[in-house]
C-alpha cells in the first residue's frame, strides 16, 4: 500500500492546462524523484500537495484512506513536510528562531522563552545534518544562501509534538549547496528512508537523482510520461522522457576558434572582498570562473557590470579605458550582464517580454531618446526572441507567465539585443531544464563565433569544462590560476578550487 497516492490531478490556470489527470504513488520508505522540464507541472503538483493551490480535480489517498488537503494545515497534519526552492526564512531572526518558527519554543518558569534550551535544540537539529559551523544564535541575514538552505532543511527534519513527519517534499534542495553539503544531506535522506519515511525529491541534477532515488516519475507538458524503477532506467532514458527528443551531446562544439585580439583587459580591479584582479578576455573566447561557493565569482561579474563599486583599477574595452563607471555606462559601452537570480534581478515579471528585452537599450528604441518607437521595439523583440528560441505567445506576453527556462531566454535576449562586445553570465543555466539548457549553450556558441567575448561564472563544473576555452580559478576573492579547459578533468578543476590540498580546506570549513 502506498503511503501517498494521487490520482486524476488536474489544474487549469487561466485556460492553460498545467496538469492533466496526473497520477503519482509514493511508497513507504522510498526516495521518489519527480523530474521534468521547467513548466512541466512539477511546481504546480507540489503546491497542490502543500495545500497552497487548489486543484480542479484530485483524488488523494493516504495509507489507502481518502484524504483532502484544503490548506497548509491539512498537509502538515497528514505528515507532509516541504522544503521549497525559494527559501522561506526570516532574515532578521536567529538561526534557532528560524528552525523553531511555527513551533512552540521551550519555556522556563513563568512562561519566558528558554533561549539556552532553544539554542541547544537548534544545535542538535543542525548536527543531524553534520553541520557544526553554524551558530544557532547568529542572525539568519548573516548566512550565505547555502547555509540558509541547510538551516531550512534542518528545520524540516525537526520533529515536534505536532505529529510525525511521513513524507518530505524537497524542491531542488541542493541548488545552493556545495558538493560536501549535498553529500551530508544525502546521508540524512538515506537514514530517513531506512526509518520508513519517504521523500519526494525534485531536482534537475540527473546524477544526484540516479544515485539517490528508488523510483522516478517524469512529467512533461502537465502529464505523467512514466514512473520507473531507477534500476531499470538510465540517465539517457530520463532525458529522453523529459524532453521527448534525443540530446546527442550536452555541450555543442565551438563554431570558430577564439581570437587573439583582446576584447576586455582588466588591470588591478578591486572591489569589496576581492583582491586586485588582472586578466585578459579575448574576442570570441569563452572564459569560465570556477571556485568554491563564495570565492568571489559573482562579485567579479558585478564589478565588471558596474553593479558594485570598484575601489581602484582600470578596465579597457575597445577604445575606452578607465575605471568602471556604473551600470548604464557599462551597458552602453557593450558590456551585457545576465545576473544570478533571474526572478529577483533579471526580469520585471509584471511587464511584457518586449519591455524587458529593450529596457537596457531604450535609447535605441526611441525617437530622440524620448518617445518610444513601439513598432521597432516589437520587431526587435520578435527577432531576438526567435534567435534565443523563446517559446511565447508573442512579445506582449508577461514574463510572469513563462516557465523558468523561457524566462532565462528573455534575460539572454535582453543581454544580446544590444549586440554586446562582452557578455557576463552568472550561473546562466541554474534551475533551467535540459532542453532550454541546450538552447542556451548553442546560443553562447553562436554569438561567441561572431566575436563576442563571454565570461561565465558557474558552480556547474561540467558546464564550465564543456563550454570554456580557459577557466579562471578563484579562492577567497583572488584569482589563483588560469587553466586551459582542454583536457582538464572535473576532479583536477576541483583540486585547483580547493587549492590542491582538499584535506586542509575541509578542516577549515568544519572549524568555521
Amino acid at each position: 500500500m502506498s503511503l501517498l497516492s494521487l490520482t486524476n490531478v488536474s489544474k487549469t490556470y487561466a485556460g492553460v492546462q498545467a496538469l492533466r489527470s496526473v497520477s503519482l504513488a509514493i511508497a513507504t520508505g522510498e526516495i521518489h524523484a519527480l523530474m521534468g522540464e521547467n513548466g512541466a507541472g512539477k511546481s504546480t503538483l507540489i503546491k497542490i500537495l502543500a495545500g497552497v493551490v487548489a486543484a480542479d480535480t484530485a483524488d488523494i489517498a493516504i495509507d489507502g484512506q481518502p484524504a483532502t488537503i484544503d490548506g497548509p494545515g491539512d498537509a502538515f497534519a497528514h505528515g507532509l513536510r516541504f522544503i521549497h526552492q525559494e527559501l522561506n526564512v526570516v532574515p532578521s531572526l536567529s538561526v534557532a528562531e528560524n528552525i523553531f518558527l511555527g513551533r512552540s519554543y521551550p519555556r522556563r518558569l513563568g512562561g519566558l522563552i528558554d533561549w539556552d534550551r532553544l539554542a541547544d535544540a537548534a544545535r542538535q537539529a543542525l548536527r543531524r545534518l553534520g553541520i557544526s559551523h553554524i551558530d544557532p544564535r547568529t542572525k539568519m541575514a548573516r548566512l550565505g544562501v547555502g547555509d540558509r538552505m541547510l538551516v531550512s532543511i534542518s528545520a524540516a527534519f525537526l520533529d515536534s509534538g505536532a505529529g510525525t513527519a511521513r513524507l518530505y517534499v524537497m524542491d531542488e534542495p541542493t541548488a545552493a549547496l556545495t558538493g560536501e553539503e549535498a553529500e551530508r544531506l544525502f546521508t540524512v535522506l538515506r537514514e530517513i528512508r531506512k526509518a520508513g519515511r519517504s521523500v519526494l525529491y525534485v531536482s534537475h541534477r540527473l546524477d544526484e537523482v540516479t544515485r539517490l532515488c528508488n523510483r522516478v516519475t517524469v512529467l512533461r507538458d502537465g502529464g505523467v510520461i512514466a514512473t520507473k524503477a531507477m534500476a531499470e532506467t538510465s540517465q539517457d532514458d530520463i532525458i529522453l522522457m523529459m524532453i521527448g527528443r534525443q540530446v546527442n551531446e550536452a555541450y555543442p562544439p565551438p563554431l570558430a576558434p577564439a581570437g587573439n585580439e583582446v576584447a576586455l583587459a582588466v588591470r588591478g580591479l578591486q572591489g569589496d572582498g576581492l583582491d586586485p584582479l588582472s586578466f585578459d578576455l579575448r574576442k570570441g573566447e569563452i572564459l569560465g570562473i570556477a571556485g568554491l561557493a563564495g570565492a568571489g565569482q559573482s562579485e567579479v561579474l558585478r564589478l565588471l557590470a558596474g553593479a558594485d563599486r570598484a575601489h581602484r583599477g582600470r578596465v579597457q574595452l575597445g577604445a575606452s579605458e578607465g575605471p568602471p563607471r556604473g551600470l548604464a555606462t557599462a551597458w552602453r559601452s557593450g558590456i551585457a550582464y545576465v545576473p544570478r537570480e533571474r526572478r529577483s534581478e533579471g526580469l520585471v515579471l509584471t511587464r511584457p517580454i518586449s519591455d524587458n528585452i529593450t529596457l537596457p537599450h531604450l535609447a535605441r528604441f526611441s525617437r530622440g531618446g524620448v518617445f518610444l518607437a513601439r513598432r521597432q521595439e516589437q520587431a526587435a523583440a520578435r527577432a531576438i526572441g526567435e534567435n534565443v528560441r523563446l517559446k511565447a505567445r508573442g512579445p506582449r506576453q508577461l514574463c510572469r507567465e513563462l516557465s523558468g527556462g523561457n524566462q532565462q531566454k528573455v534575460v539572454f535576449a535582453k543581454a544580446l539585443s544590444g549586440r554586446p562586445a562582452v557578455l557576463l553570465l552568472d550561473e546562466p543555466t541554474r534551475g533551467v531544464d535540459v532542453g532550454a539548457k541546450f538552447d542556451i549553450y548553442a546560443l553562447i556558441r553562436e554569438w561567441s563565433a561572431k566575436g563576442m567575448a563571454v565570461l561565465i561564472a558557474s558552480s556547474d563544473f561540467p558546464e564550465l569544462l564543456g563550454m570554456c576555452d580557459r577557466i579562471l580559478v578563484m579562492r577567497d576573492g583572488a584569482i589563483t590560476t588560469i587553466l586551459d579547459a582542454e583536457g582538464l578533468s572535473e576532479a583536477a578543476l576541483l583540486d585547483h578550487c580547493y587549492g590542491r590540498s582538499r584535506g586542509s580546506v575541509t578542516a577549515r570549513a568544519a572549524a568555521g
Partner: protein
Amino acid sequence: MTTLLRRYGTLIGFAAIVIFFSVSLPDTFLTARNWLNISQQVSMLTVVAAAMTIVMAMGDFDLSVGSMASLAGVVVATLFVHDFPVWAAVAIALLVGLAGGAINGVLVSLIGILPFIATLATLTVFSGAAFLISGGKTIFGRDIPRSFSDFARNGIPLGTIGDQKLTLPYLTILALAVVAVVWVLMEQTTFGRRLYAIGGNREAARLSGVRIRSLRLVAFSLTGFGAAVAGLMYASRVASANPTQGSGLMLSAIAAVFLGMTMSEEGEPRVLATLIGVLVLGALDNGLTQMSVDSYVRDILVGVIIIAAVASSSLWKRFR
C-alpha cells in the same frame, strides 16, 4: 467572466453609481450641465491624482501634495498682495511646487528615506510654511486680480439647451490637458517605461542600467509641480487662498489612484484608470450632495467603496 469582473469591477461600480443617481435624481443628474459641473468640481483632484500616478508607478507615494497645493495657493495670493503681475506670481508659485517636489525627491532618492516618512515630514513643513506666509489668514477680495479668478469662472461656450447656456470650463480643459501630458509621459516615453520598470522590480531595473536615483528625483519634482498647479486652480476657483484649502486632496488622490489600480491586471497605476477613479469619487460626491446626504456619510461611503474595490480585486487575485 471572472477575469472580466475583476478587470472591470471598478468600471461596473462606476456605471452602477451613475445608474443609481440617474434613477434617484431623474431630472438633474444625467444632464450635460451637471456633468460639466462635475468635471469642474473634480478638476483639481484630477490634476493631483494624475501627478500622484507618476510616483505611484514607481511604487512610491507622495503624502505632501495636499499641503503643497495649499502652499502654492498662498504663495500666489501673497505675491498678488505685493502687486506682482499675474504671470510672474503664477510662475513663482509653480517653481515653489517644483522645488518642493525636488526636496521630496532628494530625501527619497539621494538620502534614502522611505517615501512615507519623507513626504509625511514635508507635508507638515509645507503646511507650516503656508501658515507662516499667510499669517494663518485667508487672502481674498481685491488682492486677487480679476484676470486670475476669471480663469476658473469662464470657459468655452458649447451652445444652449433650452434656456441654459453650456460652457466647457477652462479648469476642465486644463485638467484634461494635464491628464493628456501625463498619459504621453507615462505611456509613450522612455521615462514612463523606466518608471514602470522600477515599480515592477527595482533591482532588475537597476541592473538593466536604469538610473533609479535621477528618475525618482524627476518624478517627485513633477508630482510637486502638479500639486502646485492644482493649488493655483483652487485659488482661482475660490478667488482666495488659505493655508488649509488643499488638505483634502491628498487622500482623495491616493484613493483615485488605488481605484484605478484595481482595473489593471498587474495592479499598476495608469493615468486613464486614475481618471476613472476620480470620476467615481466625483459622481458620488455630486449625487450625494444633490440628495442632501450628510457629508460625514459621504466620507464613510467613499472609504467603504475604496475598501470594497481593492478587497475584491485582491481576493480575485488570490483565488485565481
